[in-house]
């Protein structure tokens, strides 16, 4: 799956909403000069902590270097993608094992969920949506000038996500309830 399609739908959403406030006012808004703020890793950690604490009641622990889906096993995983469009184009990607996704969905909804189903995919899509919104809200000027697509969620055992030479990419791995998940911010263009 290529991420560009998702980014295009975020741009479309932004056009429909008429969100580019600065551009409407005839001002040229640029994030180029604040790349250090956009790629600040602490913003991603703070966003993950905020979303998990508020929606699940507890935050995860950052553990970079761990594998999200055990290597060498036919393990099912879930990936949610929310595209960014506007002054920043790219995507926020959430990936976890199916087992952890089921635990997260059950905790988030208070429902008894035991296997991968549409409710789990819906919940993981919403987690990714909130992570994307929280992250862009932490970068001055990005919130009003960058739209979000609706989440796309994929699950399966044998797939990979391909990103074409991004401008920058942040990937953090977190441990939660005995499993781990990855949150990736991919920026393929910055105005």
């Amino acid at each position, binding site marked *: 799956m290529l991420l560009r399609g998702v980014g295009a739908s975020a741009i479309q959403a932004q056009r429909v909403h008429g969100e580019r406030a600065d551009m409407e006012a005839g001002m040229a808004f640029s994030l180029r000069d604040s790349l250090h703020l956009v790629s600040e890793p602490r913003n991603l950690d703070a966003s993950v902590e*905020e979303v998990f604490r508020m929606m699940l009641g507890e935050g995860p622990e950052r553990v970079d270097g761990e594998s999200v889906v055990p290597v060498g096993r036919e393990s099912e995983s879930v990936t949610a993608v929310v595209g960014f469009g506007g002054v920043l184009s790219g995507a926020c990607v959430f990936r976890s094992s199916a087992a952890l996704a089921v635990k997260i969905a059950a905790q988030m*909804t*208070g429902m008894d969920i035991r296997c991968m189903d549409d409710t789990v995919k*819906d919940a993981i899509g919403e987690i990714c949506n909130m992570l994307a*919104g*929280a992250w862009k809200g932490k970068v001055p000027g990005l919130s*009003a000038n960058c739209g979000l697509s609706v989440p796309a969620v994929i699950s399966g055992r044998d797939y990979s996500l391909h990103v074409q030479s991004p401008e920058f990419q942040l990937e953090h791995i977190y441990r939660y309830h005995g499993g781990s998940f990855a949150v990736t911010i991919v920026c393929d263009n910055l105005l």
Partner: protein
Amino acid sequence: MSEIQALIVDDSSVMRKIVERALRQAGLESLVVHEAGSGVEGLELLKGRKVHLILSDINMPSMDGLEFVRQIQMQNLAPGVPVVMITTESSEEHVRQAIQAGAQGYIRKPFTAEQVKERVVSLLNPGR
């Protein structure tokens, strides 16, 4: 108000359930919830039913939440009924657009039940 009829509009069924749970935790026990998975569905539901409160997501496919609220006003489907937008978008520009469309409240996702209570109770009991 003995029984509160609320309409929750969100393309995510999980978010609709979470918003409903937050409303109940906010003390609205005598709550009857009507759900719609899109703005179009929400408008159809309002044509045949009177509600006391509307909560809607913004970022939805086919008809977004802002257009949904504009249509409620244009078609006069829920006169005097408070509308609260619940969304991941949080900039002042988004809040301005929501108010301009006809919303009275704005809740940013992620949210706590306490935040939902604050917004909703004050809109249902404006004198308090």
